[in-house]
């Protein structure tokens, strides 16, 4: 908690979430999925969020970006550069989503619209947010493909999602979120659906984004190894609450909470973190 208090005074503060609660109306009554979550992230920083399935890590960030399903609602505040994403109207929030905040989903296989060419999917977002022409947007798309280390080929722009491999699709997803030069990228388990070698390539891209472009990244994962490789700070969630937070090094080497210890004891001992 103290580290968060310190960050508030910091001018580099990018996103600050205060007392966030997420509820779901179900047939069994009201369910609280996220319980009083506080977190903050600075510019150019990577925040890792770990937790088991159903710990509320995804719903926390869905609620910030207004992606909760119809029976869900949230309370609290999420201040992004002085703008509250939660209390604002959908129209105002849409100016930030995709433009300043990029979102990357778990499964690249299904996240791309199957009938649209890659170039159209990339340029669509710039045409929508930045009012670029199609030509300018495609030029921007080629630049972005370079950042995610895909070949700058016209043929890639004119191919369809089903012609690409999983790793390529995930890079396209990252490229789409980079189209409008965002300041924050929220990646919801971006490597879960990929094999290990592709995982490390994707994580290298994230490291580059952070170090070279100064983009803040929120990395949601249940894989501590993934988080350890990229994050500066770490948050451990269980049953909708944060059980531990702090710098990655401190949390992984000297865990205070019982659950974090259990989580770390699940990693095979030869994996040196």
């Amino acid at each position, binding site marked *: 908690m103290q580290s968060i208090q310190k960050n508030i005074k910091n001018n580099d503060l990018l996103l600050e979430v205060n007392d966030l609660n997420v509820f779901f109306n179900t047939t069994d009554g009201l369910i609280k999925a996220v319980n009083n979550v506080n977190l903050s992230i600075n510019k150019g920083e990577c925040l890792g969020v770990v937790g088991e399935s159903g710990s509320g890590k995804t719903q926390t960030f869905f609620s910030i970006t207004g*992606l909760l399903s119809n029976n869900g609602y949230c309370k609290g505040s999420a201040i992004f550069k002085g703008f509250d994403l939660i209390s604002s109207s959908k129209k105002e929030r849409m100016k930030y989503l995709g433009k300043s905040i990029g979102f990357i989903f778990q499964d690249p296989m299904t996240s791309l619209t199957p009938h649209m060419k890659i170039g159209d999917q990339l340029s*669509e977002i710039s045409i929508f947010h930045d009012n670029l022409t199609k030509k300018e947007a495609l030029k921007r798309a080629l630049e972005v493909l370079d950042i995610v280390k895909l070949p700058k080929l016209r043929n890639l722009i004119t191919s369809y999602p089903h012609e690409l491999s999983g790793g390529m699709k995930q890079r396209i997803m990252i490229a789409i979120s980079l189209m409008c030069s965002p300041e924050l990228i929220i990646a919801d388990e971006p490597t879960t659906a990929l094999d290990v070698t592709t995982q490390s390539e994707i994580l290298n891209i994230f490291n580059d984004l952070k170090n070279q472009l100064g983009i803040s990244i929120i990395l949601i994962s249940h894989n501590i190894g993934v988080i350890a490789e990229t994050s500066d700070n770490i948050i451990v969630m269980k049953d909708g609450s944060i059980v531990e937070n702090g710098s990655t090094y401190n949390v992984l080497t000297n865990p205070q909470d019982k659950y974090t210890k259990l989580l770390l004891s699940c990693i095979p001992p030869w994996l040196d973190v």
Partner: protein
Amino acid sequence: MRLLKKTDNLEMSYSLKGRSLWVDARRRLFQNKAAIISLFILIFISIISVFGPFFIQYGFIDTDWNSIYQPPSLENGHYLGTDGNGRDLLVRILHGGRLSLSIGVIATFVSVFIGVIYGTIAGFFGGKLDTFMMRVVEILYAMPYLIFVIILMVVFGRNIYFLFIAIGAVEWLTMARIVRGQTISLKEKEFIETSRALGQSNTLIIIKHIIPNLAGPIIVYITLMVPSVIILESFLSFLGLGVQEPLTSWGVLISEGSREMETAWWLLIFPGSFMVITLASLNFIGDGLRDAIDPKEY
């Protein structure tokens, strides 16, 4: 498939041209002989319906007093015979074809237009709006459509344009249901969620991501709807509610021919066979398209 040679640089492997789902579908369609033959027959019938009457010496309302109830003959140019008023049957069939086909196409597009918009809105927004909109559809379903059309025709007069609208207004219900169902399953897909996370407006998501993905079922349904609309028009004309004299459609011709089939068989056989061939072709094309666009149905 050929192996890469040493001289090929690696970029070659990317230079394969992207093949869209539509290119695949077209290839599968062209392998279906029945569908392709039907397509040519349909194109042929449409072309002769549109341009044929210009090349026939008789107009579709001209009466030839020398040949009343004349059987088909090659001598005086009435190749398919004449009716009781001495009007050439071939030119009347072609004129009727213009009307029947255009009713089929226009009424289908009216109903697809209404159905797709209604269905996507109901399916996409869901909740109470969806419940309300689908109850409206069910109420309209429960109404006997014939009475609905008759009331429309009586209130607005027997105008041919109202016939288009009346048929379109009846046929959109099924389209709306199909589209709604597809939209509900589509909107839960990740790529819709992605567009939402990237801040796109609902309208854009519907237009750019949902409707193009519905194209397959919609196209198939269109090809199956055109014949049902043609039949509906024929049925209404048969009852005397549709196209009025001197205009004609296949339904009107069949209805007139059936009254005189004992004395003048050609008045029923020829319009009937034009209609049967057209409907059969449309159905074959529809089947072919369904197999081509949705190959897992095989």
